[in-house]
């Protein structure tokens, strides 16, 4: 469960380029919900995700994950609760390390690390088994360096890594944006499968309204640092992209003119 209350973040405060990215954002996500987040450029999607993960500190407001108030915790201190997949395939894995070493890192996410061996026969067996569900043949390349993999393969492994250990919330930051359409579809399917299988609480930022409606159980739209649309259940099930646009125009009294949102 995630409870974000009155989040405010301002970049470069008190300067001519001051940018109020989050302006009192409230959002509650109950356990087990898969929320898709949309919004035009600069709406605050990525900033919000980074605030939840702890990469960015909020100026005001509070973030609660399950029973813990994590507002003041840094990113590494939240990692026992938060799992994430980055937008950039290069960001979520360490290319100098091998596939199995990357997975061993994720295996210990949020836990104490010891001076014992990071890789054991048993762990390798487990990783091989996990990788085999990707159907990419990676289970035979455990000791290959991550840098040898394509962007799509790396995102797929990132997803696996994020699901190796239980998390209270899984953050997906436009994790298919850097991939070609076919690979993106594969990674999205995989995402849905993993979230479903683990009954995970998840939040996926996307640029595509289509994706936002096709995946997950609830869709929220951010605009100027706040949640302006929130649809779920029956209402959402019957929705198509034009309906979403229409709803936006009605609530805001303005036209949405971000080509990316419309076309994607």
């Amino acid at each position, binding site marked *: 469960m995630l409870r974000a209350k009155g989040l405010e973040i301002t970049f470069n405060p008190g300067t001519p380029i001051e940018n109020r990215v989050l302006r009192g954002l409230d959002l509650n996500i109950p356990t087990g919900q898969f929320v898709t987040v949309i919004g035009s450029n600069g709406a605050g999607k990525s900033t919000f995700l980074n605030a939840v*993960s702890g*990469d960015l500190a909020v100026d005001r407001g509070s973030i609660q994950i399950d029973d813990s108030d994590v507002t003041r915790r*840094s*990113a*590494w*201190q939240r*990692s*026992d609760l*938060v799992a*994430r997949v*980055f937008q950039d395939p290069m*960001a*979520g*894995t*360490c*290319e*100098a*390390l091998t596939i199995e*070493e990357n997975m*061993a*890192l*994720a295996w*210990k*996410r*949020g*836990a104490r*690390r*010891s*001076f*014992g*061996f*990071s*890789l054991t026969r048993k762990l390798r067996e487990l990783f091989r088994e996990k990788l085999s569900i990707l159907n990419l043949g990676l289970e*035979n*390349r455990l000791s*290959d*360096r991550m840098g*040898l993999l394509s962007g799509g393969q790396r995102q797929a492994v990132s997803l696996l890594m994020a699901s190796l250990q239980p998390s209270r919330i899984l953050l997906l930051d436009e994790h298919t944006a850097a991939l070609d359409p076919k690979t993106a579809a594969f990674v999205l399917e995989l995402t849905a499968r993993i979230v479903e299988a683990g009954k995970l609480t998840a939040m996926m930022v996307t640029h595509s309204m289509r994706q936002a409606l096709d995946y997950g159980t609830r869709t929220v739209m951010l605009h100027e640092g706040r949640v302006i649309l929130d649809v779920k259940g029956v209402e959402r099930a019957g929705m198509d992209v034009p309906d979403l646009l229409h709803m936006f125009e009605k609530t805001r009294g303005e036209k949405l003119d971000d080509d990316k949102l419309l076309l994607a």
Partner: protein
Amino acid sequence: MSLIASLGAIEIGLIFGLVALGVFLSFRIINFPDLTVDGSFPLGGAVAAALIVAGWNPFAATAAAIVAGALSGYLTAWLNVRLRIMQLLASILVMIALYSVNLRVMGKPNIALIDEPTVFSLLEFGGLPDYLLKPLVLLAVVVAAKVLIDLFFASEVGLAMRATGGNPRMARSQGISTDRLTVWGLALSNGLVALAGALFVQSQGGADISMGLGTIVVGLAAVIIGETILPARSLVITTLACVLGAVLYRFFIALALNSDFIGLKAQDLNLVTAVLVAFALLVPTYKRKLAGLWPGVRANPTHVVKEAK
């Protein structure tokens, strides 16, 4: 070059093997350009020499030198991660400060250890001559350090340290305190370098305030030469390459300086170093060109093997 001169070169090479391991740890693993070593090498030497002269057991004095070196690395990392001072600048500040500290520790610009006990004199057994004993003891120390570092890199904490240098943002998202591991890593690195300094003064018979000059260049040279002659994906091989690089480097330096027909003298040491490092940096490029001329020659066979698997 005589046998004794060769063994002497290997002896110093092995000592710089420890420096190379330390430099490899900071520059390559944690990705922290750390120049503290120019200060922590003589710091190790100064602490060991001063304590031995004060009557300490040489082993205890060496251990104290390691702790002192580790503290200096800790300080550099602390300046960077806590006070946000640029990495290079933080290490230069500590390096400069250590010059004064070293003078304070020694109380004078140099200390002779000719008649004092050293770890080498204490280990003397079976009447093994000095010129054989020292390289053997040093070999044992370097091998032990290398194996311990390899084991550390294979551990959960060691893996976290490698991720800290490789992709800090990812490391943090996996629950790794990159700040803490940077501090530990630099402490470990400079501890190793100080150990080298302590062994250097005990094998060379004295400490001198200027002995740290260029330590970082020699350490980097060793790492680069090692990586060139033994390119590998496996860390176990790479740490071996660092040590080999250091030994080869010192050996070639001795060869160049001892060969009368070249006409080089001790004062040409730094020039020879620069030429050697430049040469080592050129080899990979040259190899690639060769591979282009003859398709049968592969520039980097490890790449090919891995991808084919």
